[in-house]
C-alpha cells in the first residue's frame, strides 16, 4: 500500500505545495511533481479535488489527499517507519503544533499578504506592525516547542517547522519588496537562526523558491489594475 506511486499536483510558488514536498523528502519517498500552469487548472486537479479545485493535491496510487497540513499528517502516518516522526510524540505537543499551524494559515499568512496589498504608507506600516506582533507570538512558541533544540519539532524538522518554513520564501520576498526586515537576529533571534537551519536542510533546499523570483511573481499577482 505504502509502495504505490506518489504524485504531487502543485506549483513552484505556492507555500502550501512546498509542505508535502518537504515531508516526502524527509521521508525519502520518491514522487512525481505535476506542475500546474498559473491561471488555469488541469483536468487532473479538477478531478482530484473537485470540492475546492486547489493545490496541493497528493495522489497516492489513485487516492487523492487534499489540504497541505492534512497531507503532511497523512504522509507521517502512512510512512511512519521512514525517517523521524513529523508530529511530536505527546498528544499535548501535537495539539500545540496543530494550533500554531492553524494560526499561521488563518491569521499570519493573511497578515503577511496585507503588507503587499497595502495602499499607501500608513496601511503598509500598520500591516508590518501586525506581522511583527504575530512574529513575536511565534518566536515565543518556538522557544516553548523547541525546548532548546534546533527545530519546533525538536531535533528534527517536523509538522510545524514545515508549516512555517514553507512561508519563508514569501516572507523574504515581502521583506525585499517592502524594504523592511520582518524576521532577523534583532527582532526574532530564535526564528532567525531556525530559518537558516530550515532553509539549509537537504529536504528543503530543492523545493524552496528563489526569493527574487518570488518577488517578481508577487509583483505580478498583486499588481494594481489601472485606475
Amino acid at each position: 500500500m505504502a509502495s504505490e506511486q506518489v504524485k504531487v499536483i502543485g506549483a513552484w510558488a505556492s507555500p502550501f505545495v512546498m509542505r508535502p514536498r518537504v515531508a516526502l523528502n524527509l521521508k525519502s519517498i520518491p514522487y512525481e511533481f505535476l506542475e500546474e500552469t498559473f491561471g488555469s487548472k488541469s483536468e487532473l486537479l479538477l478531478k482530484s479535488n473537485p470540492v475546492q479545485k486547489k493545490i496541493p493535491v497528493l495522489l497516492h496510487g489513485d487516492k487523492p489527499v487534499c489540504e497541505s497540513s492534512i497531507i503532511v499528517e497523512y504522509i507521517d502516518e502512512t510512512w511512519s517507519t521512514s525517517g523521524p516522526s513529523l508530529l511530536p510524540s505527546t498528544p499535548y505537543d501535537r495539539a500545540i503544533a496543530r494550533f500554531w499551524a492553524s494560526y499561521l494559515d488563518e491569521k499570519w499568512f493573511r497578515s503577511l499578504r496585507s503588507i503587499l496589498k497595502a495602499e499607501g504608507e500608513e496601511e503598509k506600516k500598520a500591516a508590518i506592525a501586525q506581522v511583527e506582533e504575530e512574529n513575536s507570538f511565534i518566536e515565543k512558541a518556538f522557544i516553548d516547542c523547541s525546548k532548546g533544540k534546533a527545530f519546533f519539532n525538536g531535533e528534527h524538522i517536523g509538522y510545524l517547522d514545515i508549516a512555517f518554513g514553507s512561508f519563508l520564501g514569501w516572507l523574504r520576498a515581502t521583506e525585499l519588496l517592502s524594504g523592511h526586515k520582518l524576521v532577523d537576529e534583532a527582532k526574532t533571534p530564535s526564528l532567525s537562526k531556525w530559518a537558516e537551519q530550515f532553509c539549509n536542510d537537504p529536504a528543503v533546499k530543492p523545493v524552496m523558491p528563489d526569493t527574487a523570483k518570488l518577488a517578481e511573481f508577487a509583483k505580478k499577482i498583486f499588481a494594481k489594475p489601472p485606475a
Partner: protein
Amino acid sequence: MAERSEEVKLLGMWASPFSRRVEIALTLKGVPYEFSEQDIANKSPLLLQSNPVHKMIPVLLHNGKPISESLVILEYIDDTWQNNPILPQDPYHRAMARFWARFVDEQIYVTAMKVVGKVGEERDVAVEATRDLLKLLEKELVGKNFLGGERLGFVDIVATLVAFWLMRTEEVVGVKVVPVEMFPEIHRWVENLLDVDVIKKCIPPEDEHLNYIKARMDSLKLKSVQ
C-alpha cells in the same frame, strides 16, 4: 491506558457549536469534566490567560494545560482518551475526515453565517451558496448512517453545526435553507443523530436555543441599521 487523576475543565459557552462539539467528544469518551460558562462580552482572566492569541472559547484545560481551537481540541481528546475512537484508524480515512471537518468549519459555516447576517438579495445569494456546499455533504451521506460511516465520528461531531445550528436558524430566519425535498439524506442523518444519547444530552435545549438565536439576529439587525 493507566488511570490518572485528571483535571479536565472546559471554558465554553452553552450556545456555541464549537464549545458543544467538545462536550460531545468528552461525553462520548466518558471523561468527567468541569464546564465553565464564559461571558464573551466580558472575558474572564482565566480565558485570556489560557488563550491569549485568540481570546476565544472553547478552551480545554487538562491538568492546567490549555488547548485551544475546537478541531485541535477534538484531536487532542481522541489522542488522549482512546476508548470510543472519533477519528478512523486508517491514514487515508483520517485525512478524509479531517478534510470534511475543515470543509464544514471553513466553508459551510462561513457561508451560512451570511444567511443570518445579511438581508434581501444578499441573503438569497448566501442561501444558494450554502445549499451548493450542503449538496456535497448530502452526497457523502448516501448509503451511510453517519458521516463517519456506521457510527458517529469526527465529521458528525463537527457537522452538528449544520444539524443543530444552521438548521435551527431556519425557524428564526424564516427561510428553509435545508429543505427535506432537496436534502433527504441530511434530514435522515439528523434523525440518526437525535437517536444517539450523547448527542441528545449535549446539544443546547431547542426552545432556549431558538430564543437565543432570535435575540442575536435582532441585535445584528440593529447593528446594521445604525
